[in-house]
């Protein structure tokens, strides 16, 4: 059954979510991107593709990921029942692989011989390097020089997996610039190369495609929470950089109007400091990396450098669907600072024995603050989208601990 005015039917055929999205790339890339769209539309309803993807998701990624009742945090916050969707337990340690597995199978179908990707925290880079090793395709990962330094364990993992890491030294030397460089590579090697974009952004069909591959998160949650509680949750909460893990959790529930949704941007040193990565709270609409969306930018339309302690959220833009959901007020967008995220990180280690990535620590930081507004009979699902092994050096430095 199709619901009238369903939020789940977007984007339109031109790739728009309301006035956001679209396709803003150089002409050289246009024919290829149209081909990606065509092929993606084919596999969306192809049972063989679905079967193949499901097979790898189950036997290689380890899906479904568990839905875990965080009993001690629930007790401590004295508010709603808190569940973690444990996507950090996936192979490679984050939700990123859900999307990479889908895209590499598509790339294979399209006969592409070379894979490129951008990465911030390195989680998407590791996931891409992993699927490339699995299918025997060469992998080139663009990563900002600044991120290479702060995410060294992931850099080494990617190298072990056979990927070539190309350090990006332009601009802010982080995720935004890695994406510029990946696009420059793509336009140069357009014939044989497939670009696995890591978040629900970029030219159409990427925002929709990445979201669809991540939607497995929410679909599993629906089943799991019905099993556990015999009803749907009251609140969903997730962190956002580009926004793929949040959409992965939210998308399945967008038309369940009674379910509240909160997405948490990285406030860095604080929204008023100017050093943050909160594109919706502190940006305005513009065009970058192939789509129209909210961006941090100067009065003159130059893209600002973002700041976050979490390399995965350190991006001045956001997926176009989030810009739409923001303007529609379907999702509430809040933010957490570096400091609050570190506190939540430690809190989660101590109370649940889970070392979270710095990214979902942002979501937990907001959850800690707002839990008191929810009664004990309410149910919250937070997406634990990544594990924190990669972040221990950053945390040690912040806490002045010498390893």
């Amino acid at each position, binding site marked *: 059954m199709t619901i009238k005015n369903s939020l789940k039917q977007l984007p339109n055929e*031109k790739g728009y979510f309301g006035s956001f999205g*679209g*396709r*803003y*790339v*150089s*002409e*050289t*890339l*246009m*024919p*290829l991107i149209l081909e990606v769209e065509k092929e993606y539309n084919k596999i969306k309803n192809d049972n063989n593709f679905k079967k193949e993807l499901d097979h790898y998701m189950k036997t290689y990624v380890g899906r479904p990921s568990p839905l875990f009742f965080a009993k001690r945090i629930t007790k401590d916050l004295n508010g709603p029942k808190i569940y973690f969707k444990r996507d950090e337990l996936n192979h490679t340690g984050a939700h990123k692989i859900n999307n990479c597995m889908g895209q590499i199978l598509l790339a294979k179908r399209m006969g592409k011989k070379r894979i490129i990707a951008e990465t911030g925290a390195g989680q998407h880079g590791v996931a891409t390097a992993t699927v490339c090793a699995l299918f025997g395709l060469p992998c080139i990962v663009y990563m900002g020089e600044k991120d290479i330094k702060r995410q060294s364990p992931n850099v080494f993992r990617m190298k072990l997996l056979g990927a070539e890491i190309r350090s990006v030294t*332009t*601009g802010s030397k982080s995720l*935004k*610039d890695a994406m*510029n460089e990946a*696009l*420059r590579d793509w*336009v*140069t*090697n*357009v*014939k044989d190369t497939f670009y696995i974009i890591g978040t629900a952004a970029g030219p159409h069909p990427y925002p929709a495609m990445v979201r669809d591959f991540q939607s497995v998160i929410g679909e599993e949650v629906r089943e799991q929470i019905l099993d556990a509680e015999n009803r749907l949750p009251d609140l969903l909460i997730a962190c956002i950089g580009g926004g793929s893990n949040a959409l992965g959790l939210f998308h399945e529930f967008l038309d369940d109007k009674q379910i509240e949704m909160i997405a948490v941007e990285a406030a860095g040193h604080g929204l008023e400091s100017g050093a943050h990565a909160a594109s919706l709270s502190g940006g305005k*609409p*513009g*065009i*970058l*990396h*192939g789509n*129209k969306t909210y*961006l941090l*930018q100067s009065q*003159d*339309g*130059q*893209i600002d450098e973002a700041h976050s302690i979490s390399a995965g959220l350190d991006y001045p833009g956001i997926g176009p669907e989030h810009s739409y959901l923001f303007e529609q007020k379907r999702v509430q967008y809040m933010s957490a600072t570096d400091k609050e995220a570190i506190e939540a990180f430690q809190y989660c280690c101590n109370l649940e024995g889970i070392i979270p990535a710095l990214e979902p620590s942002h979501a937990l930081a907001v959850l800690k603050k707002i839990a008191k507004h929810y009664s004990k009979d309410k149910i919250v699902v937070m997406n634990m989208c990544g594990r924190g092994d990669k972040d221990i050096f950053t945390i040690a430095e912040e806490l002045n601990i010498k390893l």
Partner: protein
Amino acid sequence: MSKRIKKIFEIKGKKLITFTTGGDPDLNTSLEILKTIINNGIDIIEIGMPFSDPMADGPTIQESSVRSLANGTKINDIFEIVMNIRELNSEIPIILMGYYNSIFNLGIDNFTSKCAETGVDGLIIVDLQPEEDSELFTKSKERGIDLIRLITPTTDHKRLITILSNASGFLYYVTVTGITGQNSANIEDLKKSVNTIRSSTKLPIVAGFGIKNRNDVEQISTFTDGVVVGSSIINIIKDNLNDKYKMINKIKIFTKDLKEGIKE
């Protein structure tokens, strides 16, 4: 459509077009460079609107954007440059080239008004294709500004028809799949592609990307209506940042040489 662009292509002979980033290395020098270029008989000038994230450009033009922005260039400064040139020369076609965010940010109506007021003849927006350009196209057309469309080696016949349907001024053929300032195209392939396009349009076709020196200009201008040289001039800027006099002088010699290489 722009009268100046129409007129220049009615004059016999192949056209030499240059690209420099507005405000590189600073506003005054940038203007001096443009004056020098114009005095050497260059037919059309493209002025780059510097952008923080120039995804279609190689290191040379990226760095020139960085230099310009570091010196505080704003979009209004670009219009200032255009006005200054117009005071000296009422005939030369001026094209602004850049990325869509610069236009979107100012507002399409506002941007195209300023273009018309200051005497801009055409726009080349690298990340804006026919699928997304209807609003800018309409406003530009109203104001007599050509939205110059790009055709690339990956453009197939179906897309070519789409691109040509609203094209005006001239066509810009991107000679290589890639970013600016990198490899040069194979001449035979290039000739074939240009001839294919020519069979579908009466508009002039100019070639750009990877055209570096007099030799490239000589060869490629035999079968196109014009050629664009950008990164090579910007490299002269980069190599002579400490000596403006030398910089201008070298650009003078270089563009003169290019002009002599163009086929009449």
